[in-house]
């Protein structure tokens, strides 16, 4: 039997080179979806294989990795991916946003502002912002080539005609560097403004759909809107029940079957950092912690 033996960060060097080429092309053409020969990874498609391949291709032995899912470091899939790299690359891991050099994320951008020496790697399910308006890849590629985005504006306009405002809550389309319309991955639109003029490099990997795209540092990213209907980020109007933050994105947690709710930061690192700094919310008992993350066991 062929006993498996794996390279640093799992992927072989030829594959990493192929992915790095795609990444370089993506950085050169901000917002453009570069096809790449996505590999079968040891986790399922739709569970972050694109992000994992991008991370594997850029990770070096000195990197410090943070992985979040829904903003949280301790959701099951984030743990699984963090452990995967701790095991296959032996890199240091962290939950602290400012300490990480590479942050792989699903569905959120950290609340703590990113800095220049960081790369944010997004896991992307459907990279094509026009997909639900036009199912054919041959058509959507042509539309991007011609910058023919009328269909998207019509969709947003129809929302306004019907509801009085744009009815897209997450995966809200953006225009990158005044050229390509891009899907920010299913982040809540609350996070869209963080993408604009961001000092960190933002890379997007879609494994199943075999696409990589990028936003280089300090690139203009504009959420699509109309002059008379400007883009509005959504946030539930309450402070975090644990740390009292007034400006973070909140998870809604159902506490009983009688309509009880509490709202807490979706970004667990941000929330824990604030609590450690003495901030308190209305329900701030000491939050449950299973065990510290980071270090050798990831």
């Amino acid at each position, binding site marked *: 039997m*062929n006993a498996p033996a794996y390279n640093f960060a*799992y992927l072989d060097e030829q594959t990493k080179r192929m992915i790095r080429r795609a990444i370089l092309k993506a950085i050169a053409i901000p917002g453009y979806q570069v096809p790449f020969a996505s590999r079968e990874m040891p986790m399922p498609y739709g569970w972050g294989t694109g992000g994992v391949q991008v991370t594997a291709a850029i990770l070096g032995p000195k990197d410090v990795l943070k992985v979040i899912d*829904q903003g949280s470091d301790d959701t099951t899939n984030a743990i699984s991916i963090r452990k995967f790299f701790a095991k296959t690359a032996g890199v240091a891991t962290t939950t602290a946003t400012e300490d990480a050099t590479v942050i792989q994320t699903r569905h959120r951008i950290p609340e703590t502002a990113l800095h220049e020496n960081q790369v944010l790697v997004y896991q992307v399910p459907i990279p094509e912002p026009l997909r639900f308006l036009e199912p054919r890849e041959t058509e959507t590629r042509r539309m991007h080539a011609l910058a023919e985005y009328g269909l998207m504006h019509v969709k947003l306009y129809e929302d306004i005609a019907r509801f009085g405002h744009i009815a897209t809550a997450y995966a809200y389309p953006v225009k990158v560097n005044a050229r390509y319309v891009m899907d920010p991955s299913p982040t*809540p639109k609350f996070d869209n403004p963080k993408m604009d003029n961001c000092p960190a490099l933002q890379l997007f990997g879609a494994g199943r759909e075999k696409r990589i795209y990028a936003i280089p540092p300090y690139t203009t990213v504009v959420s699509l809107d109309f002059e008379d209907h400007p883009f509005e980020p959504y946030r539930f109007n309450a402070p975090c029940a644990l740390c009292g933050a007034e400006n973070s994105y909140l998870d809604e947690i159902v506490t009983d079957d009688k309509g009880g709710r509490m709202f807490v930061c979706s970004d667990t690192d941000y929330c824990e950092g604030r609590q450690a700094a003495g901030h308190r919310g209305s329900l701030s008992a000491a939050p449950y912690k299973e065990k510290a993350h980071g270090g050798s066991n990831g």
Partner: protein
Amino acid sequence: MYVAVKGGERAIENAHRLLANARRGSHNVPEVTLDQISEQLGLAVDRVMSEGSLYDRELAALAIKQARGDLIEAIFLVRAFRATLPRFGASEPVETGAMRVQRRVSSTFKDIPGGQILGPTFDYTHRLLDPSLAEGFVPEAPATAEASSAPTPRVTDILGRDGLIESSPQAEKGASVGDLTREPLNFPADRDLRLQNLARGDEGFLLAMGYSTQRGYGRNHPFAGEIRFGEVEVEFFAEDAGFAVPLGSIELTECQMVNQFKGSATEAPCFTRGYGLAFGQSERKTMSMALVDRALRARELGEEAAAPAQDEEFVMSHSDNVQATGFVEHLKLPHYVDFQSELGLLRKLRQEFTDANAAESMKEAAE
């Protein structure tokens, strides 16, 4: 209460430990061995090798055991391993005409050179549950005869001699073979990539797609020209040696469908081909594949392409069960961030609806 919605490392570890125990089942029952899987569940192994696109019976058997018999999960395990293997190159084309056939049937001719050979088949068995198989069954030894030395040329080659069927396009010597696991797939895709996609495609999906062409969604009047199963040699051209060296032999099933074609202004009417090929004995798979391959040639043959099975993007984007199962099952992952965003939007829409209705009834009451 906050605990319940957050996962944990220990929870994952415990879940995997529980899985290992569920996989093993009762310790009063002997553990199944890889040999047993390979020998007694051979068709499952064939399917996992085919759709996993890795010819290794032992690894496929291990994958089936590890996946608790879930074949798509087993295919996934094999694929993930395959993705890490280095590529040395492509083999020489296998000569299926020289196959040591164990089974070979044609539905187009009553007798064919080399003969019809039924071989090991479920065909013509009565599907009655057989209690004698439950335990300790020893089958009667198979009937044997002198092996025939008669060649078994492909039925389509026989038809081809009279020009009744389109000639099979020959690749240029030394032309590279497309590989969608190494290069991203672009549309429109050439037939080599389409066939690779179908060969890796889910048997159930291809079965349904092929079946739909028989029921009128892209009908192409098929006949099973030939289905053959047996062993072929695999050779690899070694640059150093300057000649092709044998790598070993593999079992393959090949299906050549013969389909009607009315001809066009430039081409005389003739039969056309649909092609299916898979590792091991995989007849349902290769027959379905051949139907879908032919359906996907609609554009090339100038036929109207309106049915799902004729739609290259539709078929090729959805045939892969590892991709499909991953994306369908990813709905199990937490989505509370985007759900929260939707919830906010829905509450806003409902509030607006209520306000509008209230304003309306106020207006009516005032009138």
